[in-house]
């Protein structure tokens, strides 16, 4: 339970708010690279600001406020040219840094151009996503977390949810929900509707732990029948501060990305890489990205797959969860710890320091700890992921399924050969 002013502080993300200032220290994906290859300018919204992101013919990306500094017409209808974007209304042109470099209807030799620069951010491509930074200069490095650069078959499910991103992040430090929401509740639905629920989610949590590290919080769980040597405890997986969670297992690695669009909307992406051991990964020209549905035609939540269940809980908490009337228990200490972390990092920004997870050093890749043998389910976990998670909506679902089955068969064949040889 929080006071309402603390709840406001943690959940308001627009310009000029405390949380907005903290969140503007990080890079965010704003569009898919494919979209700008098909048409070079696109409107987007991030941290309560309407923006345009564009790609010039030389391959460089730019991002700036959608409203033209001249008469506030939308630059999303601008023309992209060699050095920047030109407003459709009167032809004012802005370069990647936001400098106004042409005002065709103004007289020559005027200094007017220098008064009207656009408040441009930075934009770059990584892993098939275009990322934007709209905070103070100097911009930090765009972190190359392992999932974005690893080899494998990529697959991105996504949707925009009508809720604040913090309630989604709180779910990332709430291990107990797995055995209930994805275990017991899934089982209940399976009995009602006559299908088989995935068994790996049903194990009871014996204990959970949360360790802070340089990129966020590592979450650990000890499940019934497991020991502290099992991956779920020994390795765990991280909440990547301030808006991501790294998960995986059974030859699948994923970054769950929760982009704060504004106070009451979050762009939720499931950036996934399939790379089972022994698999021959086919070449991929474009990464398939697809909308994950979460409401049925009657307006009810679709809850017969894992992420649909999560989405139901996040969205039904309301556009901004009212934390003045919640009742946290001891099993919610991860949530308590995360709120403290946000508050600590708000203070760091107010003191002029870089907050947690801001990367300044150049690097090739940032490896993150993540369990490989998830819930002790082995390769079976990947098939459950595909059949009973968001991947069932993927246009390449069958390819992914075959990839994991073929890899498992090849592993099994290798094991048999070695066994025979050993005899």
């Amino acid at each position: 339970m929080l006071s309402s002013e603390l709840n406001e502080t943690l959940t308001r993300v627009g310009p000029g708010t405390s949380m907005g200032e903290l969140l503007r220290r990080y890079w965010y994906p704003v569009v898919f690279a494919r979209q700008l290859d098909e048409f070079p300018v696109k409107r987007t919204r991030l941290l309560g600001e309407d923006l345009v992101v564009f790609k010039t013919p030389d391959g460089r990306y730019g991002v700036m406020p959608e409203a033209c500094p001249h008469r506030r017409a939308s630059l999303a209808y601008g023309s992209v040219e060699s050095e920047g974007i030109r407003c459709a209304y009167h032809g004012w042109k802005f370069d990647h840094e936001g400098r106004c470099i042409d005002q065709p209807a103004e007289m020559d030799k005027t200094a007017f151009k220098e008064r009207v620069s656009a408040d441009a951010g930075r934009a770059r491509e990584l892993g098939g996503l275009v990322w934007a930074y709209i905070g103070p200069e100097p911009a930090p490095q765009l972190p190359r977390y392992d999932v974005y650069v690893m080899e494998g078959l990529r697959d991105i499910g996504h949707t925009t949810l009508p809720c604040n991103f913090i309630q989604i992040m709180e779910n990332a430090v709430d291990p107990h929900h797995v055995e209930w929401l994805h275990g017991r509740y899934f089982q209940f639905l399976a009995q009602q509707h006559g299908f088989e629920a995935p068994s790996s989610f049903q194990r009871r949590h014996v204990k959970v732990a949360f360790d802070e590290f340089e990129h966020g919080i590592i979450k650990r769980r000890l499940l019934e029948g497991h020991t502290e040597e099992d991956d779920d405890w020994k390795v765990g997986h991280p909440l990547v501060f301030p808006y991501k969670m790294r998960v995986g297992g059974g030859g699948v690695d994923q970054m769950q990305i929760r982009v704060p669009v504004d106070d009451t909307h979050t762009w939720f992406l499931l950036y996934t890489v399939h790379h089972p051991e022994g698999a021959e990964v086919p070449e991929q020209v474009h990464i398939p990205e697809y909308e994950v549905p979460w409401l049925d035609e009657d307006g009810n939540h679709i809850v017969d797959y894992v992420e649909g269940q999560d989405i139901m809980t996040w969205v039904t908490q309301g556009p901004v969860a009212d934390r003045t009337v919640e009742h946290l228990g001891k099993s919610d200490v991860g949530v308590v710890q995360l709120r403290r972390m946000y508050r600590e990092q708000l203070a760091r920004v107010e003191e002029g320091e870089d907050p947690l997870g801001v990367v300044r050093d150049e690097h090739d890749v940032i490896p993150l700890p993540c369990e490989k043998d998830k819930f002790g389910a082995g390769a079976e976990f990947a098939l459950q992921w595909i059949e009973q998670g968001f991947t069932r909506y993927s246009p390449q679902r069958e390819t992914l399924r075959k990839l994991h089955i073929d890899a498992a068969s090849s592993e099994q064949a290798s094991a048999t050969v070695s066994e025979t040889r050993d005899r």
Partner: protein
Amino acid sequence: MTAEPFRRLRAVPAAPKTSPPREFAADAAAHLRDRPRHCSRCGACLADGIVTEYWVASDRVFHCWCRHCFWVGDVIPVERMVGHEGT
């Protein structure tokens, strides 16, 4: 004592008016009434730190972080001293 600690001990801002669901109004009011106002270690105002309340059985636990001395700790109001319970 210098002026600095007095500045830090300024009054906590009044809680804004909220209208919680009727069934939880008492808990919400109790939170606003009982949450610690000042750091247990340095006495600074906790308004710019964080105080989150959670429950452990019948105990109400106020998890606190002080922005001024970075103290992290729990404050538990005691209504009745309870010893070990027999099994």
